[in-house]
């Protein structure tokens, strides 16, 4: 077997090796049991004291959400003003300009929402102050927000009946002190010692061997790249993200970054099972997610390794696979694997340009983001999966003629309504957004925006349509990767994707937490012969079928117009 494939397999196995114990550890951390990192308790006590927080104060699900939304809205205002005025603030050695209001609107929502869609380029669009005090800060806290929201859901199912679900601030701060920060230190050090810049020196200049004058953007990148992966954020320090040799210097760092973005979403599933003492349920969820991920990854791998058929016709050799937009030290196999991970999980960092991948690869990338629950982002992946679970419970209940139940709580009209709204939200935002964009592109091509609509697309025909579809899908999924050929820094894309990201982030957090809170309050019904068991193979298959059917029905027409149509035109 070739070394590129062995590299991927080894990466996945190592990921499991880290994620499973990490999950058990997290369950203990959030249950308040003894763990080896308890030496950090004084630090946490200090943080709570300085912030005026009493963690003994219990919150119901509504208070949890209020706390979550309050602090998130605060970050929106804070970041927005720093982005606009970054040229007047200190710590800007490359003298980069302030952002336009619409770009700042987009960027700040994108980073608060853990999306990290970037309509600017890191080298020229932001100052060091912005990179560290806004963007990297938000990469930590947005990931912790997602994890804390998931822990509220854990808490709802731990006891038979509960109205008080713990303290949001405690979950939030512990996600940082016990998980994100220590792991970031490890990853940042690995990157630094493999060549990623970490210092505060500004741009450098040198004369190359052939005599060209070359400028080099640098800065404290390693710190940000560590959390951008661990927190499934994805926003790169440099424009080219993790394909940049500074962000991802070698195959080793590539493996580390791939593992870093996968371990927390995986660990959260394991943590769920241990926390609510239903390990079998967690392993079933884990199984569905893993099978789903492989079903998306294997065809991606095959379409990239086959190479571009149009280049094959020119008579050149593509022994390694498709190379446009990819890096030689990483190779097409690891780039294909990464492209699946970064889209099933909502990271959105890239180590090769997705716009240049093969049509079918684009199809799988889009589908991964549309499903958005095979592992999924930090914490929120599990919340998304929970919605599918509720729908599956409901449908199975209808099929066998019993009242639907989940973990001993009756699922009734109110919960189903919330789940249905959240399920319908994604297709609505993605398809309506793409439709409006397509309409403007075809009918108002001359609008006087920073990038005229007729110049939006970097590629003609079906691939151009895919660029717009990808942008909306990535925004809704809070993914943040892009078909970057799209001319997206203008008022239309900045505002529209900003709104889509905002709704696509907070409604899918509010919905599942509300459902969990409502269910937890209900009387516990002990398991009987008549109970629909949710930790069986049959039910897992049912959930899988629900995921596939819902997404296929919602998105097939759009996918047929974009990547599928391009694939078939390339066949002839």
């Amino acid at each position: 077997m070739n070394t590129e494939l062995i590299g991927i397999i080894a990466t996945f196995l190592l990921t499991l090796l880290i994620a499973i114990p990490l999950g058990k550890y997290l369950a203990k951390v959030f249950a308040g049991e003894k763990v080896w990192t308890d030496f950090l308790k004084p630090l946490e006590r200090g943080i709570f004291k300085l912030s005026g927080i009493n963690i003994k104060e219990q919150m119901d699900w509504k208070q949890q959400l209020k706390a979550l939304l309050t602090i998130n809205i605060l970050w929106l205002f804070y970041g927005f003003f720093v982005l606009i005025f970054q040229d007047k603030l200190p710590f800007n050695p490359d003298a980069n300009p302030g952002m336009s209001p619409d770009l700042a609107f987009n960027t700040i929502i994108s980073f608060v929402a853990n999306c990290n869609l970037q309509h600017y380029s890191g080298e020229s669009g932001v100052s060091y102050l912005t990179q560290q005090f806004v963007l990297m800060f938000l990469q930590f806290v947005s990931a912790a927000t997602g994890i804390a929201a998931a822990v509220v859901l854990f808490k709802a199912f731990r006891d038979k009946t509960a109205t008080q679900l713990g303290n949001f601030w405690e979950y939030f701060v512990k996600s940082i002190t016990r998980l994100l920060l220590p792991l970031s230190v490890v990853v940042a050090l690995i990157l630094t010692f493999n060549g990623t810049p970490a210092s505060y020196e500004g741009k450098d200049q040198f004369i190359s061997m052939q005599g060209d004058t070359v400028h080099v953007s640098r800065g404290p990148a390693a710190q940000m790249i560590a959390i951008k992966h661990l927190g499934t954020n994805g926003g790169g320090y440099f424009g080219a993200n993790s394909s940049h040799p500074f962000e991802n210097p070698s195959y080793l760092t590539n493996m580390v970054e791939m593992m870093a973005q996968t371990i927390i979403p995986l660990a959260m599933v394991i943590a769920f099972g241990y926390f609510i003492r239903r390990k079998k349920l967690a392993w079933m969820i884990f199984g569905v997610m893993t099978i789903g991920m492989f079903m998306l990854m294997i065809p991606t791998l095959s379409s990239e390794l086959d190479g571009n058929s149009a280049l094959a016709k020119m008579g050149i050799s593509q022994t390694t696979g498709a190379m446009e937009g990819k890096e030689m030290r990483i190779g097409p196999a690891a780039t294909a694997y990464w492209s699946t991970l970064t889209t099933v999980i909502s990271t959105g960092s890239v180590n090769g340009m997705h716009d240049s991948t093969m049509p079918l690869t684009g199809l799988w990338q889009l589908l991964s983001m549309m499903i958005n629950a095979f592992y999924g982002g930090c914490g929120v992946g599990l919340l998304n999966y929970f919605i599918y679970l509720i729908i599956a419970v409901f449908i199975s209940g209808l099929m066998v003629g019993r009242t639907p139940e989940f973990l001993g709580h009756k699922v009734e009209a109110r919960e189903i309504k919330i789940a249905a709204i959240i399920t319908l939200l994604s297709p609505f935002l993605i398809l309506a957004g793409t439709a409006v964009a397509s309409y403007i592109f075809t009918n108002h091509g001359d609008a006087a925006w920073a990038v005229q609509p007729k110049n939006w697309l970097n590629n003609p025909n079906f691939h151009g349509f895919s660029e717009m579809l990808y942008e909306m899908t990535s925004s809704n999924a809070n993914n943040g990767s892009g078909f970057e050929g799209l001319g997206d820094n203008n008022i239309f894309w900045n505002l529209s994707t900003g709104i889509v990201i905002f709704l696509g982030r907070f409604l899918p957090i509010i919905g599942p937490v509300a459902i969990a809170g409502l269910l937890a309050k209900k009387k516990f019904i002990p398991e009987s012969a008549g109970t629909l068991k949710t930790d069986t193979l049959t039910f897992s298959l049912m959930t899988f079928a629900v995921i596939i059917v819902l997404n296929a029905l919602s998105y097939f027409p759009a996918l047929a117009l974009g990547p599928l149509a391009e694939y078939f035109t390339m066949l002839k």
Partner: protein
Amino acid sequence: MKKYIIQSIRLTLVLIVLLCIIYPISIALAGKLSKGNGGGEKITKNGKTVGYALLGQSFNKPEYFWGRPSVVSYNAAGSAGSNKGPSNPDYLKEVSSRIDTLLKYNPGLKKSEIPADMVTASGSGLDPNISEQGAAIQIARVAKARKLDEKKVKELVAINTLKPLMGLFGPSSVNVLKLNLALDNL
């Protein structure tokens, strides 16, 4: 509600100190111990900086090995890929003309020997490496331009070939900058 607002503000300030000051500065200080002191490892020739170890450079003279096509012309003030889709007709024309250029400057080269990486733009525009095959097809040209024995050039290519990680993981590739530096130092 008011309580949450005040707690949010205070918690944000505390976390900014921890996450935006203590954490990054600690890493930056640790980075001082790394090669290049955390500012990126530099490569020098006769005491002058001629590049960064990790960043590719533009080479188009016949006596140097060439790197991959780059959208940003290897100027590391920015970084980008072409973002051209696989079926884009303009893109296919561009690739075709790159093939012609290679054929023109490497007499005797057959089309079927050209590997994809030599005619496609990298993701960052700063890719420092090419495939082994990409180096192999340039040996004859470089040897001729430098009036060297082909065997000698081949040896240098072998020395500057990056093997898979631990011999097991990932592709092998050739670092163009280091190879060219070695040629100049002969």
